[in-house]
């Protein structure tokens, strides 16, 4: 057994909440581990553990008092040890962390504690090692919404996101791709059927072309004050105090479209200076030309820029004050656009460089300069040709109406093997060609028949579920390797949240995917593929709980400069940062404190960082004093705060839960609340939270949770830097239970970095949970331990984590039920 610094976090405890990260703050003493080796568990118990329990623990944890529902009395004679492996792990962890016995009670010596820890480890490893290798099994997983959208796009080339209409997926163990939890309800089936009808129609025939172009969208920002009632008829977009209008639109056809936008310009003329003479009342009226000229000169010309997918499609100069630009009317551009989803943005770029966005607001709440609306009208000059998706399906490449007999079989075989993600047999092909024949016999075209076959495929359980079979010849306990096709699916849904591509299919068909070098090369290829953004968008966003950012609304009176656009920027910063760590194959530990990030002008202003301007995101080096890594990014700081204030407890909990894998248990009922009114006024938040320490039973948990949050107190509830909370200067020092002290976020990050094993183990567990689509169990401990060790040997490179997860027993194999 390898010597390591931290006992494994017990994975069955993922479903219980462990009080503390495995061996987080270990004191010395693991060298004693060797002395426990070689002794049978019962003998070691009698020598080391039993006496300690009797001397220090049983006074509270006995049959009469049953403190915390736990009594050690039944075990003192050495009975029932085997069945309670998890309990001994917890005992060891609490002893080592100094949580038990509670402060103020007699404490066992450090080496005695270490003996207990060693025994508990040996003991539980012993029970684990005696089992057969157990890779577990994953329940048949239905495609969740994200996977459905991506798969339909890859399978058929149909854009739009039909699954956005489906009911939200339930999550299990923190992720929405858990096979046991994902269910099929009649409501979902209804939506699947509607979607299948719609998608099959769009894929074969394309969305129906209208007789005339019409208004596809009328986009306005929500809360546009000038909108009066017209907001009711608008497609609303996020609100930007800086006046931008941005979003994405699904263009149904490859055609030309008109993009029409109108700008609003409510700049005022500078007020007449004090003492300047008034115009005499009887002076002749100013000629209209001069008046307009005066208006025009009264405010500097500024550009307005409109882009589609980042490419400028219109640009203009807006001059003058109030209504001068408004009367200009709409800016109209006709563009050729490919069918699909495209991002658009219309804005006054110079406003991004205003430090405080409130300068763009008038007292009545209207913005000074903003984009009023963007209309999309079309299609013009639409091509009558079949859509791009047609070629994906009709692989025989005949023109519509020119298909021959063998086409049906070829088309269906290609469609089914890709949709079911495995080779198909003649019977399965026949089921689908039968539908084509049925349509033709009823008088419909061959294309309509194929459409029906597509509809059937999209509703098939072979498509909707990822099925993994157990060979019938095996006995119940034999673990076996997945087939290459099953492996291909696991890989593609893990790294891309999408179906396998042709290369994966090819290797699976040839039976070569499972070979070590091939598998290794494929993982690297997939990580380099653009589709691996799924690791950021789906895995990391759930791991870090960033999806809650949509629901977190900082109080606008306390944080008036935070609008929808800034929150979107916060999220983008973290997404880009995570993407860089993955793309550059950096060490996992860089997530804690890498000295760079991605910012645009507005976000940099929010952080108080100078030298970054413009709307576009750029890579920014950091010196680390204020900001570095994930922990001091606004997205995370906001998600772990309340709308009105920070919470060191929430932040501490976030760090423990998401970075160290040791979520603290919930507080007991009946605790007095925080005096919200007093916070930051009569008493500082920190002082109030000291009440946690005063009470020994609160301190058991809060001595762990609070210090981490204190270390982040210089960041307010939206991630902005501050030195004071109201009148109180912020004290961002903290003391961990083992006595380590630190001041500020940088030192806190240093401590987290030194816990590299705990950090790696947590990330490995989360990643493996996501990759498998099931919660981890105690029999996965060995696999996790192996991954952690190998990743550490590889300098913690991100790719090594992914490779070792893929190469693990639970990922490559399964056990029958």
């Amino acid at each position, binding site marked *: 057994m390898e010597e390591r610094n931290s006992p494994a976090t017990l994975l069955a405890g993922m479903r219980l909440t462990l009080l503390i990260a495995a061996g987080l703050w270990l004191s010395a003493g693991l060298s004693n581990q060797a002395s426990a080796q070689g002794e049978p568990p019962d003998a070691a118990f009698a020598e080391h553990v039993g006496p300690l329990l009797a001397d220090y623990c049983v006074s509270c944890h006995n049959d009469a008092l049953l403190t915390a529902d736990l009594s050690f009395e039944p075990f003192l004679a050495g009975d029932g040890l085997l069945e309670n492996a998890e309990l001994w792990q917890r005992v060891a962890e609490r002893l080592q962390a100094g949580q038990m016995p509670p402060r103020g009670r007699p404490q066992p010596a450090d080496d005695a504690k270490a003996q207990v820890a060693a025994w508990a480890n040996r003991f539980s490893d012993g029970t684990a090692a005696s089992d057969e290798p157990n890779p577990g099994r994953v329940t048949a997983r239905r495609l969740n919404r994200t996977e459905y959208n991506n798969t339909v796009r890859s399978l058929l080339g149909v854009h739009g996101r039909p699954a956005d209409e489906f009911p939200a997926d339930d999550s299990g163990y923190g992720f*929405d791709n858990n096979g046991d939890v994902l269910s099929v309800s009649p409501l979902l089936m209804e939506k699947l059927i509607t979607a299948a009808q719609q998608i099959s129609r769009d894929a074969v025939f394309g969305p129906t072309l209208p007789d005339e172009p019409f208004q596809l969208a009328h986009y306005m920002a929500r809360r546009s004050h000038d909108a009066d009632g017209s907001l009711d008829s608008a497609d*609303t977009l996020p609100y930007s105090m800086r006046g931008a209008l941005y979003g994405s639109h699904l263009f149904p056809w490859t055609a030309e479209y008109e993009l029409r936008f109108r700008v609003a310009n409510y700049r005022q003329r500078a007020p007449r200076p004090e003492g300047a003479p008034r115009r005499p009342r009887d002076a002749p009226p100013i000629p209209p030309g001069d008046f307009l000229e005066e208006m025009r000169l009264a405010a500097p010309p500024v550009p307005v820029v409109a882009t589609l997918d980042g490419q400028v499609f219109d640009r203009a100069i807006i001059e003058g004050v109030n209504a001068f630009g408004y009367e200009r009317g709409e800016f109209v551009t006709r563009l050729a656009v490919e069918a699909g989803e495209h991002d658009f943005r219309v804005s006054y770029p110079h406003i991004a460089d205003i430090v405080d966005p409130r300068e763009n607001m008038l007292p009545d709440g209207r913005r000074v300069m903003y984009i009023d609306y963007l209309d999309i009208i079309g299609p013009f000059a639409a091509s009558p040709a079949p859509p791009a998706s047609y070629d994906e399906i009709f692989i025989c490449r005949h023109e519509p109406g020119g298909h021959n007999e063998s086409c049906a079989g070829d088309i269906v075989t290609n469609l089914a093997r890709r949709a079911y993600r495995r080779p198909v047999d003649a019977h399965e092909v026949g089921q689908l060609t039968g539908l084509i024949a049925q349509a033709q016999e009823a008088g419909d075209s061959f*294309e*309509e028949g194929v459409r029906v076959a597509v509809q*059937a495929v999209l*509703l098939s*359980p072979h498509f909707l579920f990822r099925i993994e079979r157990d060979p019938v010849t095996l006995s119940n306990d034999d673990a076996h390797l997945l087939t290459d096709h099953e492996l291909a699916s696991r890989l593609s849904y893990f790294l891309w949240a999408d179906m396998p591509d042709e290369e994966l299919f090819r290797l699976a068909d040839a039976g070569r995917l499972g070979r070590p070098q091939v598998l290794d090369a494929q993982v690297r290829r997939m990580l380099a593929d653009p589709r691996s953004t799924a690791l950021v968008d789906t895995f990391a966003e759930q791991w870090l*709980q960033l999806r809650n950012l949509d629901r977190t609304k900082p109080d606008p009176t306390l944080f008036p400069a935070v609008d929808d656009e800034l929150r979107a920027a916060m999220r983008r910063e973290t997404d880009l940062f995570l993407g860089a760590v993955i793309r550059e194959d950096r060490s996992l530990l860089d997530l804690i404190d890498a000295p760079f990030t991605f910012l645009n002008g507005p976000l940099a202003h929010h952080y108080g960082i100078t030298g970054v301007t413009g709307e576009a995101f750029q890579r920014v080096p950091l010196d680390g004093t204020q900001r570095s890594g994930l922990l001091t990014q606004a997205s995370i700081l906001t998600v772990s705060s309340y709308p009105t204030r920070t919470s060191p407890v929430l932040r501490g909990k976030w760090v423990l839960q998401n970075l160290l894998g040791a979520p603290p248990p919930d507080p007991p009922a009946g605790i007095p609340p925080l005096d919200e009114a007093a916070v930051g006024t009569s008493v500082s938040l920190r002082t109030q939270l000291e009440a946690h320490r005063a009470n020994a039973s609160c301190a058991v948990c809060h001595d762990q949770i609070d210090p981490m949050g204190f270390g982040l107190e210089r960041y307010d509830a939206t991630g902005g830097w501050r030195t004071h909370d109201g009148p109180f200067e912020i004290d961002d020092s903290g003391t961990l239970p083992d006595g380590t002290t630190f001041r500020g976020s940088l030192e806190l990050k240093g401590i987290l970095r030194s816990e590299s094993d705990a950090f790696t183990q947590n990330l490995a567990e989360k990643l493996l949970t996501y990759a498998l689509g099931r919660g981890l169990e105690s029999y996965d401990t060995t696999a996790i331990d192996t991954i952690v060790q190998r990743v550490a040997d590889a300098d913690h490179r991100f790719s090594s984590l992914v490779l070792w997860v893929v190469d693990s027993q639970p990922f490559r194999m399964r056990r029958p*039920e």
Partner: protein
Amino acid sequence: MNSSRHLPRRSVLKGLGATLALPFLDAMVPAFARAAQVRAASPTRMAFVYVPNGIVMDEWAVPGLDGTFPLPTDFPRILQPAAAYRDQFSILSGLMQDGGRAHGDGPGDHARAGASYLTSAHPKETAGADIQAGVSVDQVAAQHIGHHTRFPSLELGCEEGLYGGNCDGRYSCAYSNTISWRTPSAPMPQETSPRAVFERMFGGTDLDPDPARRARRATYNQSVLDLVLEQAKTLQGSLGATDRRKLDEYLFSVRDIEKRIVKAEQDADVAPPDLTRPRPGVPQSFIAHAQLMFDLMTVAFQTDMTRVITFMIALELGNKVYEEAGVSEAHHGLTHHRGDAGKIEKITRINRFHVEQFTHLLERLSTTNDGDGTLLDHSMVVYGAGISDGNRHHHHDLPTLLAGRAGGRITQGRHTSYPAETPMANLFVTMLDHMGVEVETLGDSTGRVTL
């Protein structure tokens, strides 16, 4: 190539938007007159409207002695907005949900409250796959009488389910995402988008103007469903027990849809009515959202699309900020007030705000003609919560308002205090009786209540 070139719906229907209430449906009634004529007497409808995190009981209703008394002339603050309907509803006090209590499990009163509210069962404490509650009263009704209508039931809400593994203590988010359970392990997801609800009711119709083509497509749809059912059954045979259960959900759902398609086809020969179709997504304004959903509930009852609806105004543990109620703190955070008068005031405001929205439903139902009487006369609408005192997480003396006369079977305008610890399930079985659904017991019921 299919050359049907009908105009997209957008230019046919008027999109006046989310804040506009659906117009009153007299225009629609002729289109569905056929279905309406078949009915002899108006059927009884059942609806449950749920609010989370408890209610400030002092401002809700003052329980009297055990027994039944007329409603007071002055309503406390929270109920005050409903005063105009005082002769159409009653307050029921003293009911409890024992399933919501901990019974040795860890913290998680919100998850338990939501999961036990309509099931009267004690949910299993788990965040994983083995969730288990009970069958909820609305689904019991749906299973018995749902075949009369296009949708056996509708589950609606204003808040989408939360992400993340545990939502409350060690309980799965599935427990707080809905109050409706088809089986003890199958929670019914809610529809939160008004547009999606509208589409389900009116949008599924094939808009192809050619009836022959529509008929052919209906045949193909049937063949597709037959095929996938066959595939699923064959597949099941080769899978382990857990996977078979997953496929069971799939099979049930497909069969359920097949039944509904048959029903829908009976109404399919009419063109969709000229209704305003809500915009996509969810309205910004909570008031607009809630009212639109209540409008859709009314339409659903009026057109007999369903007779059973559940509606969660917000999810259990909901932490929404109700700006329109003048409160800028999040809901759940406030409810642990521990006596702070300022917080209690804000919660009261939120509770009252919820009742204000609910009165919109009372207004629609009580002014919609339903044959011999109004919709409300023929319905039973429960407005309530699975927690009474939100600070202490009490599951007894649950705030319950029952509106509607169930076709004359219920007398309204009263406040009835039941003996302490009367199971809520007793109310449910009584309501099922009034729906013509005979069950002996539900959850922990011990008998009936008098209404």
